[in-house]
């Protein structure tokens, strides 16, 4: 582009040029972050001043009273722990089982490979609501409603996204690795566990992040399976709070800030993984 710029004006253009594309991008970015800033701002506003006529975007006398209130009255701490107790086993389970299945599909030859792989991919097409109705009845028959099992088991053992992601990664490893391992007398499990898996930290990290966020933010399944207040996840606790304390906005916004904080930290630290994961499979919201 600059090579063709030989006009007189090109000299001052050569200064670090800032693209005009920045202007709409900045406007858009402000719109994107405004609600989150507003969320933080209201959470720090004294509860009785949220709707002051002169209330702007920034709180006048910031206070953390709503946060203390939220932890005391809404039992956010428990919601936080509950969400973790579900998301951690889901993440560990999904990463391990998806890596195993992905490895088999990518590196082992066996009867029915294409068939099973297609079957797993097809599950992406089944809307979650179709499964949940029957799962609800099934879990009620085995007496596991209002426990964490219906939220942990399906997510940990049935991840088409994870299998696909790991398979693609294992396909990219050189074929010679398998032969070398076979010559050394390693069985497939040793090959997988000692040689392949330690190299797969990047895709496993991406999968772990995605699985954790999906579980942490999930709303529909906890809404259906959990009925006891004491078991509620953070999003569920917030939604039920909104019904009960519908007008206490400072309190609600403090709870919302607490709920999104771990996701935001994870996102800022691991942004590249998230972008790579979405562009790879289209997964997201």
């Amino acid at each position, binding site marked *: 582009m600059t090579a063709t710029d030989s006009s007189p004006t090109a000299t001052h253009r050569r200064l670090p040029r800032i693209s005009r594309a920045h202007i709409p991008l900045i406007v858009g970015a402000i719109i994107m972050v405004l*609600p989150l800033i507003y969320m933080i701002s209201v959470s720090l506003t004294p509860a009785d001043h949220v709707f002051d006529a002169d209330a702007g975007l920034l709180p006048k006398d910031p206070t953390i009273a709503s946060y203390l209130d939220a932890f005391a009255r809404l039992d956010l701490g428990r919601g936080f722990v509950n969400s973790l107790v579900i998301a951690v086993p889901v993440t560990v389970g999904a990463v391990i089982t998806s890596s195993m299945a992905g490895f088999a599909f990518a590196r082992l*030859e066996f009867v029915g490979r294409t068939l099973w792989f297609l079957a797993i991919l097809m599950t992406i*097409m089944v809307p979650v609501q179709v499964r949940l109705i029957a799962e609800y009845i099934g879990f009620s028959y085995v007496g596991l409603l209002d426990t964490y099992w219906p939220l942990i088991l399906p997510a940990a053992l049935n991840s088409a996204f994870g299998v696909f992601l790991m398979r693609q990664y294992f396909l990219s490893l050189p074929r010679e690795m398998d032969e070398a391992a076979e010559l050394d007398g390693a069985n497939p499990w040793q090959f997988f566990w000692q040689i392949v898996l330690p190299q797969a930290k990047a895709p496993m990290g991406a999968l772990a992040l995605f699985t954790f966020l999906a579980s942490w933010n999930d709303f529909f399944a906890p809404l259906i399976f959990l009925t006891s207040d004491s078991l509620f996840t953070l999003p569920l606790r917030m939604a039920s709070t909104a019904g009960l304390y519908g007008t206490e906005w400072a309190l609600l916004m403090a709870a919302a800030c607490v709920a999104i904080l771990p996701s*935001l930290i994870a*996102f*800022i630290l691991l*942004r590249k993984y998230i972008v790579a994961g*979405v562009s790879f499979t289209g997964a997201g919201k």
Partner: protein
Amino acid sequence: MAVSMTTARTGIKARRRRNSRQKNGWAYLFLAPQLVGLLLFTVVPTLATIALSFTNFRLGGTSDWVGFENYLNQLSDPVLLKAATNTVVFTLMYVPAVVVAALTVSLLFLRVRRGRAVYQTAYFMPLVTSTAATSLVWALVFQPDYGLANKALEGIGLPVLRWYSSPDQALPTLVLIVVWATVGNSIILFTAGIQSVPSHINEAAALDGATGLKRLVFITLPLISPTLFFVITITVIGSLQFFVEPFIITSGGPGNATTTVVLELYRQAFTYSAIGPAAAISCLLFVAILLLTLIQFRLSRWVSYDRD
């Protein structure tokens, strides 16, 4: 000589067969957890839901086959028809909006060299945050009496709106919120798609004197059409399953102005314990999604995949 060759060959064959049998065993060991999950949590529940849709099943009660009764009842139920209309109207507003917004931002992204990380952080943040949490802040922003949106409109001298508390404005308000929440997903996909267009094509077009807009319409868009189709497919499927925002912000109201298919399904199954009708709704949804996916695959055959 010839004999020993054949025995040697059969020996190799036998060993291969033994090897592959061993590999079969290993493979299924590796697959076992995911295959059990697939059967228990997708195949069986899906078949069970289809079966349930033909019964008047009640938890703890009896259950009889009722044939197509649930389907006929649901398809003539004004609430479900309203929900279906809402879902279609929502999709028709949301999908073009999110595609145009995401495409615009992606094209702008590729024109800046600095600050992309900052922009990514801003545009992708809603993707990782809890929809329940962000729905609450939007409920406050669009609160008709004292929300930020109406304050802003007043500030620049425009008439205020009723947003989600008016039957006419509620669905468009939710469209705005969901575009905000999901635009990052499509931006990521478009950015990846546009970046995979070989740069020499654009350079050649620039040398031929093609301007920005022409280049977009005649070169970039056709080249990224596979991405475009993929984005449209997944956003349509996502919007047919639209649930959390109307559940939290409007509870489907005012009236049934924002009741969606999945919200109605949820009410049938878990508010009224009407499992059969709910199963019928979810099967209809399933069929709709399958049909749309098939149609879009068909259409995408006309799309150019040839980039060389």
